[in-house]
């Protein structure tokens, strides 16, 4: 129940000695991303509540001559805020965190490249390799998929299971989910490309999520399967557009073709449809 602060008045923040404009209350990591200042991060997504789990985005806040570490994804811009992103202290802890990530998700290219970018090419910790891991030994438990599924989609099909070092993400009791829309938001937000999803025949199969199968709509025109059926139905129920009928029947490609055809017809004085 975290309230997103409404962007406030313009303020000036200092990052690595340089001044930048920001809105009061804006998340510092967002400011850095906008200004192309590199801060590594894995669990941040602007449209979701601040979470602070990956700990990679830590910066040092300079306050009254003292320095204090804080995660930039939970830090809010305020006038005079001053942070440093690459102090020896940060670099030291960041390296250890990368080593932990390399051990946790040894099969992830993204993690490997990211760590290498920060000079960490090997880990001193025991690598966790689990046969048959539904997430291919690539998951870093950043929670983005879980949060997108519940906060954005309102589905709550997946969640954390167990706690501590045994934590994993999956559907409850590893049973195919009845709440999953097959929207694929989880796949898109996953920073390490760990989640597998594939359209097989008339179904979308969420391979990582206990092989949850979601039926797809079939295009009446070309016969191709395109969007998850129930998801389109529920989205359509909320839409108010004359295009509704076309969306329900046709895949995006055929819909485009039909639209163009209509336009041509309209030009000749025929039927015209505008959204």
């Amino acid at each position, binding site marked *: *129940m*975290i*309230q997103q602060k409404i962007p406030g008045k313009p303020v000036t923040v200092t990052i690595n000695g340089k001044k930048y404009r920001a809105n009061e209350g804006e998340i510092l990591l967002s400011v850095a991303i906008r200004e192309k200042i590199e801060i590594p991060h894995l669990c941040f997504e602007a449209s979701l509540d*601040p*979470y*602070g*789990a*990956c*700990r990679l985005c*830590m910066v040092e806040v300079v306050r009254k001559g003292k320095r204090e*570490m804080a*995660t930039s994804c*939970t830090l809010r811009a305020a006038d005079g805020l001053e942070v440093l992103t690459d102090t020896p*202290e940060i670099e*030291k*802890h960041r390296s*250890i*965190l990368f080593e*932990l*990530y390399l*051990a*946790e998700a040894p099969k992830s290219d993204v993690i490997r490249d990211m760590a290498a970018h920060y000079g960490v090419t090997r880990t*001193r*910790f*025991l690598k966790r390799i689990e046969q048959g891991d539904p997430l291919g030994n690539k998951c*870093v*438990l950043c*929670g983005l998929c879980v949060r997108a599924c519940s906060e954005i989609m309102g589905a709550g099909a997946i*969640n*954390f299971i*167990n*706690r*501590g*070092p*045994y*934590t994993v993400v999956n559907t409850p009791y590893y049973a195919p989910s009845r709440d999953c829309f097959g929207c694929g938001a989880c796949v898109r937000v996953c920073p390490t490309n760990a989640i597998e999803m594939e359209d097989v025949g008339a179904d979308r199969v969420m391979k990582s999520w206990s092989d949850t199968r979601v039926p797809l709509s079939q295009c009446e025109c070309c016969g191709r399967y395109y969007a998850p059926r129930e998801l389109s139905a529920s989205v359509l129920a909320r839409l108010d557009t004359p295009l509704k009928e076309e969306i329900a029947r046709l895949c995006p490609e055929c819909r485009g073709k039909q639209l163009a055809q209509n336009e041509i017809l309209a030009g000749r004085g025929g039927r015209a449809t505008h959204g």
Partner: protein
Amino acid sequence: MRIVSAADLEKVSRSGLRKIRPEKPRIAVGLATCGIAVGGMRVYDRIREIIGEQNPDIELARVGCIGYCREEPLVNITIPGKPLVILHRVTPGDAEKIVRAVEKGEVPVEKALCRIPSWDHITGYTQEYGAGFDGIPRYGDVPFFSHQKKVILRNSGLINPEQIDEYIAIGGYAAALKALSGMAPEAIIGEVEKSGLRGRGGAGFPTGLKWRIARNAEGDRKFVICNADEGDPGAYMNRNEMESDPHMVLEGMLIGAYAIGASEGLIYIRAEYPLAIRRLETAIGQAREYGLLGKDIFGTGFSFDIGIATGAGAFVCGESTALVASIEGRTGRPHPRPPRLTDPGGGLFGCPTDLNNVESWCNIPVIISKGSEWYAGIGAKGNSGTKVFSLVGKVDRVGLVEVPLGTSLNTIVFTIGNGGAGNKKVKAVQTGGPSGGCIPARLFDTPVDYESLNRVGSIMGSGGIVVMDEDTDMVDIARYFINFAASESCGKCVPCREGLKHTLLILNKILAKKATKRDLEILTDLTETIVATSLCGLGQTAPNPVLTTLAYFRDEYDALVNP
């Protein structure tokens, strides 16, 4: 009956006094969980049986625990006009003898631990029991008690926790009456601030300041919560406080709620404390009957009630944001602060919320009744008041110890605890629960206050003190606590979830004599990062046992590793 005035309180008080100090002899058995665990209930049942058969003119009652766990089961005898006598290590076999003696106005002297001629209940009432039984040592001469100062445990073991009248008899709810009908909320907060009380849940945050922030927070609906999650292995202060004197918790919360402007209160208590839950429920019911909870308390127009929320047994749910998530029915995982609970949107159901530890609440009635100046006079500068510690492990006298803050570890472990059990040499103590540090015996002149403990690498925590002797393997101790922390980690952030796991793996490797010097370096680097980068207090403090044993008992590590 509804209590609305001092006169009403006085009336109930008189009826309560007749129970505490009846006109006939009273036998009271210590029946907190600790007493029950060593057979207190069997003693109680046997005495009841005998009284039932022979019908002597004797009252039988249940009380909480006075804290001397090693000597339990404890039984109190009150003979009119005589000192209260505490019997120790009582067995069902002693019951007959006890009843026989009490019938004749005597006590079985050979079972007597000490006598209490008069007792200061702190909240405005001194109980004069009487004179006599000179052959039995006085309470103040028993080494376990003589260096203690009972402010929080002011009634524990002496009153029946299931009888509100007994609590009122020793001055209970008078502080609430004084506060609600005679003090402005601001004035109460001012008193708590001046008292210097700091949160007893571990971090030592000034209670008055927290109340002020909660009072000033915007919002029509506010909550006060009592944190009774007490999950540290070896810590049971809060359990005893609730089991032995539940009304002091309720009274503290009532005063706090009035000062903050909250009309709803919750006690978040772990499900593993069934007796405490039952006694709190009883206490809440009785307080409602007297109108001390509910609508228009004392006729002041102020309304407040308290509910109980039980925790499902995760240590991390004691952390403030995880606690709130757990009450709201979400997974108990901490979130970054701010927002703090007192911030708009940050507390329970998004409402500004004040969270205090059980023991913090227990101090409130005393501060209001005795005044902030009296309270601030106890303890050390910046660390006023007393603190209850559970003194456990390999110490001779195990029990709950209440001492002024600033008392040295020497006093606690040696003077009060009488050093190692079985004449073994004490090597170290661990303070502050699983995430506290191990302090070596050579640093036992360290005063037990928030700052001094931090300086030696440990923490106050909630007040567990675990004693270790010459036979204790310190590396193994570090492993024990890391294992606890790793399995209690909520798994949200990587340094704690992954870091503690690898810390444990390395410690296992060291104990299996398979590690090298390089592993010790990795251990140091890793634990420093866990401290610096973890999201919540669990991860931030969990490495303390490793860091302190590495600092103070490095030789034990060196002996195990290969070059």
